[in-house]
């Protein structure tokens, strides 16, 4: 009876599959419960909240449709915060990436003390942003006793009032953020460089290629997947800047460092306008998402994969 035996085996197999599915779901349950409750559901709920006018103190939220989104476009503070955030991203990302690439290339020259350098450059990455922001707050001290002003003074340059000056406050935050994030990019770039097969360099050397042209024609194109990855991660991360601003300037002076997430925090958790804050969170998400897609489309297509 070959036919019956097959069905019996099929049934057994199906039974095994179903038991395994049941077991697998049990193993997945704890992580899934947390992800659904605190990551998936909130995204949907945030959208619902963004359609409400909900001052947290009042128990009865009013449905206002897309009024919060419309208000966002009219809110000059929100526009300012967007412009400032873009300023921050543009100031931080390219400089940090260029500096990190330089450091990574230097570290990749088979030098002594690689591990030591790598650890030192990485140190700011693992320290808490708010704690190092406190240090930098004092480095930017507005009179001669500040570390930065002392340095400028010794070089014969005029001192500045840094965080108290609307023109300088954002560059100060940018500089600190580059310092803080550099090591992370260095480590990623270094890993990318070490992944490039030495055969390419040996072949180029036979053809008579030298340092800089070797970098341009071999390192740069072959490193492009890494560069692209660092770019995407950096842009996403930079759009979410918060701790530095919270500790050093609170968005001031004259709103010159008011960034989106700080504004969101202020609206949502100081003014308790939950609906409006949620609309802002959605706007931020859409901006980050769109930017990521655009980068994939326009820059991603120029990436070489080995």
């Amino acid at each position, binding site marked *: 009876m070959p036919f019956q035996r097959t069905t019996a085996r099929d049934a057994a197999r199906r039974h095994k599959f179903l038991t395994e599915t049941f077991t697998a779901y049990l193993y997945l349950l*704890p*992580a899934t419960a947390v992800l659904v409750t605190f990551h998936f559901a909130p995204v949907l709920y945030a959208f619902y909240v963004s359609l409400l006018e909900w001052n947290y103190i009042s128990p009865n939220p009013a449905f206002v449709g897309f009024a919060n989104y419309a208000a966002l476009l009219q809110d000059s503070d929100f526009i300012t915060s967007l412009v400032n955030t873009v300023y921050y991203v543009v100031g931080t990302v390219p400089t940090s990436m260029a500096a990190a690439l330089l450091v990574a290339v230097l570290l990749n020259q088979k030098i002594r003390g690689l591990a030591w350098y790598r650890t030192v450059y990485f140190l700011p990455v693992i320290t808490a942003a708010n*704690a190092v922001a406190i240090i930098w707050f004092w480095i930017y001290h507005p009179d001669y006793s500040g570390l930065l002003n002392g340095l400028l003074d010794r070089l014969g340059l005029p001192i500045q009032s840094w965080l108290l000056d609307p023109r300088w406050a954002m560059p100060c935050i940018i500089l600190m953020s580059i*310092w803080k994030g550099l090591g992370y990019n260095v480590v990623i770039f270094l890993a990318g460089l070490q992944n490039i097969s030495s055969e390419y360099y040996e072949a180029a050397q036979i053809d008579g290629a030298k340092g800089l042209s070797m970098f341009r024609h071999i390192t740069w194109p072959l490193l492009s997947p890494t560069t692209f990855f660092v770019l995407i991660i950096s842009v996403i*991360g930079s759009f979410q800047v918060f701790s530095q601003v919270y500790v050093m300037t609170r968005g001031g002076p004259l709103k010159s460092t008011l960034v989106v997430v700080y504004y969101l925090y202020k609206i949502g958790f100081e003014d308790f306008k939950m609906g409006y*804050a949620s609309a802002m969170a959605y706007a*931020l998400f859409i901006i980050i998402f769109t930017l990521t897609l655009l980068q994939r489309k326009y820059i991603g297509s120029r990436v070489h994969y080995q």
Partner: protein
Amino acid sequence: MNHSRSRPRPGAITARLLRSAGIHALLLAGAIVMLAPFAWMISTSLKDYSEVFTVPIKWIPSRLVWSNYADAWNEAPFTRYFFNSAFVATATTIGQLTFSALAAYAFATMNFLGREVIFTLFLGTMMIPDQMTLVPNYVLLFKLDWIDKYYALIVPWLASVFSIFLMRQFFQTIPRELYDAAQIDGCTRFGYLWRVMVPLSRPVFITCGLFTFIGSWNAFLWPLIVTNTDRMRTIQVGLSTFMQEHGTVPTLLMAASTMAIMPVVIGFFFVQRQFIQGIARTGLKS
């Protein structure tokens, strides 16, 4: 290449030495910039107040004022802050590693309905920025009456898609035959995870554990929102409160900052190789 190694010309050696010196000079300059803020922090934390604002700056205090640390510690409930951070970070790490290992084990070794779909959905959460979930999670925790409780600081971070992903990758490299052999020896499914998979995957557990611990220890925005009394504040939020109250006393502030930073820095020195390799492999952001 070959002939230059066997009989190097004197000029080539000089050029190589110069090149190497140049590289080290650049890297050292960068390293000094990286370390200077920390040096200033430690130096200031050990100064007498009168020496903080000297021009030019005095890097080595004429007298080491260790009492700044004791004073800072007594000015605010730092014992409580430290305990809270240590407890929250430890609980989050243990819980998250457990939950992630269970999920990764299912993804890596079991054949079940909807495996690919569920895994893709999990990965999808990495697209969601944390700010998206701030308001709804706050509302939820408020309704659960979890605000200003340990639950609020721990439970939302008990699942990490990063960890699940990393562990799954690692689990997949362990040969299936090992499982069959273990099963013949009477090993249960869970027993195999606990007694075979976990010990074999130590490096990945260390990497994930470190990430979680450091991320939890350094977290700022979330604890800032869900705590509102000194009883529940973590070290980072406590430090920021301390700055608001004692911002004009840099010696105490730097002593407090040093204390907040040091546990992670010291821990990092012990495991830095594994940690950096983990990042290089995966591009994780802490």
